């Protein structure tokens, strides 16, 4: 019989090969995928989050754990779908027009993914239209905008305006971040939230979709 503790441990330590093969084994043995998720995998990622928050893990440890989580998740996903379970939520993320700084954006994307979100990465220098179509066509719950330059910050407002004029502003939450961005700026441009850090962004996204 599959060792749920071992799967937990494999994710915690970021061993993607191990987590994948343990998940496969479990599926083969007919273990309920929902219980695998709830009793091993999500608790493992929660523990990873705790270790990160308490300054014992750095981002690399967290990303590696998220990768191990993902490889197990891919195994059980088809079975989960049959049971009607759905992903936490989906986020379209990108740096706004004129802004080519992707490291912060990538970090937030990676951490959201580690937190169970599906990510639509629109890259850097992203046109407002891309965000609109992510909402319209992919039905993302959250739009996450990043800017590292004060000169590109106004681009955030443009995205919100385009969402409004496309009539989809109400279908998504908008969060903004990046070095020069402030809570007050977020409020001014009508964003739904602001986060000063990548971990804060995950918490905010969870809050948006009521999974806090």
């Amino acid at each position, binding site marked *: 019989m599959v060792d749920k503790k071992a799967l937990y441990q494999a994710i915690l330590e970021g061993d993607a090969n191990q987590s994948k093969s343990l998940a496969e084994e479990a599926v083969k043995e007919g273990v309920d995928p929902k219980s695998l998720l709830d009793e091993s995998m999500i608790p493992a990622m929660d523990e990873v989050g705790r270790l990160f928050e308490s300054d014992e*893990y750095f981002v*690399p440890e967290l990303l590696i754990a998220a990768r191990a989580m993902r490889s197990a998740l891919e195994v059980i996903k088809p079975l989960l779908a049959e049971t009607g379970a759905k992903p936490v939520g989906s986020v379209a993320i990108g740096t706004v027009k004129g802004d080519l700084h992707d*490291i912060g954006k990538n970090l937030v994307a990676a951490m959201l993914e580690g937190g169970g979100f599906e990510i639509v990465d629109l890259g850097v220098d992203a046109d407002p239209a891309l965000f609109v179509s992510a909402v319209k066509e992919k039905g993302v719950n959250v739009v996450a905008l990043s800017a590292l330059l004060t000169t590109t910050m106004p681009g955030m407002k443009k995205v919100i305006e385009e969402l409004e004029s496309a009539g989809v502003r109400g279908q998504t939450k908008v969060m903004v971040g990046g070095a020069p961005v402030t809570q007050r700026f977020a409020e001014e441009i009508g964003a739904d939230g602001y986060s000063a850090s990548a971990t804060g962004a995950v918490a905010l996204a969870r809050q948006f979709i009521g999974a806090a």
Partner: protein
Amino acid sequence: MPGPVAKSPLSIQDLDQFIYGSTPNPVHCRRGVEIGTGTVVPEINFTLPPIEINESTWSEIQGIYRETIDSICQRAVALEVPSFLVEFETLPPMTVNPDWGVDITRILVETLDRYHDQYGLKGALRLTPNDNRDHERPPLMRRGRYWEKMVELFERGVAEGADMLAIESTGGKEVCDDALMTGDLKTVVFALGVLSPRDMEFLWKEMVRACGQGETIPSGDTACGFANTAMALADQNLISRVFAAIVRVLSVPRNLVAYEVGALGPSKDCAYEGPYVKAITGVPISMEGKTSACAHLTHMGNIAQAVCDCWSNESVQAVRLLSASAPIAYLEQLAYDCRLMNTASAHSSEDAIRLRDWLVESDASLDPQAYVLRPDVVLRISKEIVEEETPYGQVRRAAQCTFQELKRANENGLLHLPKREQKWLNRLEPVIQELPESEADLIEEMLPNLDRSRFLPEEYGLSV
């Protein structure tokens, strides 16, 4: 591939000669500005407050630069600043549209000239076009519209009378970024030891050529996109400081390439690896630390001053503080920092060494990134670096001996590492030990794994 960097022996071999304000190969600019001849020179850098850059705001933007540089010069006169540098780092639209970069360059040159004529104020302008090449993905490093506009700004900036040309070049960054986040040291070594030096050679030959068309000094570069990214991530507790400290030293060889092909210094302020550059090449360096808290927080606030020749605020927006616009406040702060250093060194070289050592001691034990800037550590590691003949060999050697320095410092209590940092020390050891001796082996290993939608080997002269 760049030619061998034959820098052995070090330009500065004696710890007592490794001091702020003085260096074997000083730089002389117009308007009487001298760098590295005995006194530390403040370098002020300012940028725009939040504002869109476009045709309709352009005259307002020119007004901001004009007003700010004028107030800076006024304050420099009032404080009797012996000499100073102004750095103009373009914003992306000013490089894509060189007319704009040239407009601001002209405003700054004219104002420095005017204050020199009227008050004898000694000021020099460093023009730093931003490296826009990674503004498309995958970046084109040697061709395409971004590259062409950069070259245009190099040449027109020289024609406009910029005293120095500098850059924060990004070759290899497209590979390095993710590796920093995932703590993948081998890929960082590939970026800094293989890609970046190749780009530096190509880019800096071009910059030196452009400078040759006028009286502009090809000054220096920085591993900002690499080591400072690591520093910023470490400061947010996102990645390990031991890791960031090693990345810092790994960025030295790429930087050396600029001086190999004709750059003369000073290095860029945000190149915290500057002390290594100074020890090895003897060119003057610009540094930033506590007084660049306007631009980023740091754990190297004092130690960064120890062997600087220019002392900078990195960058501050022209926002209003209670006293004045922030750039004026920061010029003043830099001026007083420099006064102190120059007063001590005017007394005696022993006093200069004393002040240097206090600056060092006050930070060195608290953070590995500070520790690797200790002048003695810099000299020890630099000696090892220059024994290698290729940038890759240098990076590999730098990784090995920086690791040993940090391990030893941790063991003997000269450096206080928390447990999770010690874990990273252990984690990095095998990675460093297993770095292939041959660059070709590393290239062969890395290339197949890299995503060509984000990185093009041919842009670095690598055949696929």
